[in-house]
């Protein structure tokens, strides 16, 4: 397989938070009834994770699952194995009403690192980022300024943002501007 071609060549920014385009995250979209036994068992067997509850995330080592909607899940795995994992999952769920697609190269993932990440996201998205409202373990699909995106917090100082690859440059620009050192509002730390 050819090398990973990142949208922004691993762009990085250091400000209120550190922003970094992650190299090669394997991503597989699964559409189907997430309550279906075949689908649940297949995901659990292949990825070693239970299907997350509404808006939830689940991680086990280098795999993960993100609840995107009642009939959609984004599965995370190492980039190199994504195509094989997608093929294997498609084979396992072929008797269920489901669709499996490897979308690793259709999405871009950014990591935000730092204690100000709530504020950096809150400036761009119509989402309540207050501690106690949005916490690690929850995924939020919304917009960042003018484009759709999804984000979740791995812990209090780490978050990941997923957007379409075609708008990676726009989203990186947004995040960098929002994380500009001179733009601190300190809303959540006051």
């Amino acid at each position, binding site marked *: 397989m050819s090398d990973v071609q990142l949208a922004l060549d691993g762009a990085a920014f250091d400000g209120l938070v550190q922003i970094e385009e992650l190299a090669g995250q394997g991503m597989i979209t699964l559409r189907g009834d997430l309550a279906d036994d075949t689908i649940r068992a297949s995901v659990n067997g292949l990825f070693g994770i239970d299907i997350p509850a*509404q*808006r939830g995330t689940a991680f086990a080592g280098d795999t993960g699952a993100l609840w*995107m*909607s*009642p009939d*959609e899940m984004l599965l995370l795995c190492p980039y190199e194995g994504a195509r094989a994992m997608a093929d294997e999952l498609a084979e396992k769920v072929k008797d269920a009403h489901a669709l499996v697609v490897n979308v690793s190269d259709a999405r871009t993932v950014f990591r935000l690192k730092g204690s100000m990440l709530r504020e950096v996201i809150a400036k761009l998205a*119509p989402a*309540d980022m207050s501690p106690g409202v949005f916490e690690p373990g929850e995924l*939020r*699909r*919304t*917009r960042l300024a003018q484009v*759709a995106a999804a984000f979740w917090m791995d812990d209090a100082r780490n978050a990941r943002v997923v957007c379409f690859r075609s708008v990676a440059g726009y989203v990186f620009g947004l995040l960098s501007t929002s994380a500009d050192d001179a733009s601190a509002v300190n809303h959540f730390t006051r």
Partner: protein
Amino acid sequence: MLCLECPYCGVAAEETDLHPGGEAHLKRFGPESSDDDFTGYLFHRENPKGVHFERWRHVNGCGKWFHAARCTNTLEVFGTYSAQTTEPPKDLLDTIRAKRPGFTWRDIA
């Protein structure tokens, strides 16, 4: 600002997360329907000052269509409910009747 709770993902979505889909519970009249029925389906819409039933799509979120009942005058939201229905749920109608006695909307009262 209008905030609607998406019944599919449970997010209290702000207006810019959503896309309006016009009036709810339209019955489609297609080929071989009468001219009057077709005209009504295509052009005639409710435009109430007060209780209204609408379709919305959580376009930047989970992507699902759903229904919302709200007051166009005060922006009060009475509730949201599933798209897989042809009429508002009874408990929601009871809530609206209690808050807006005597309201009418098409053949709902």
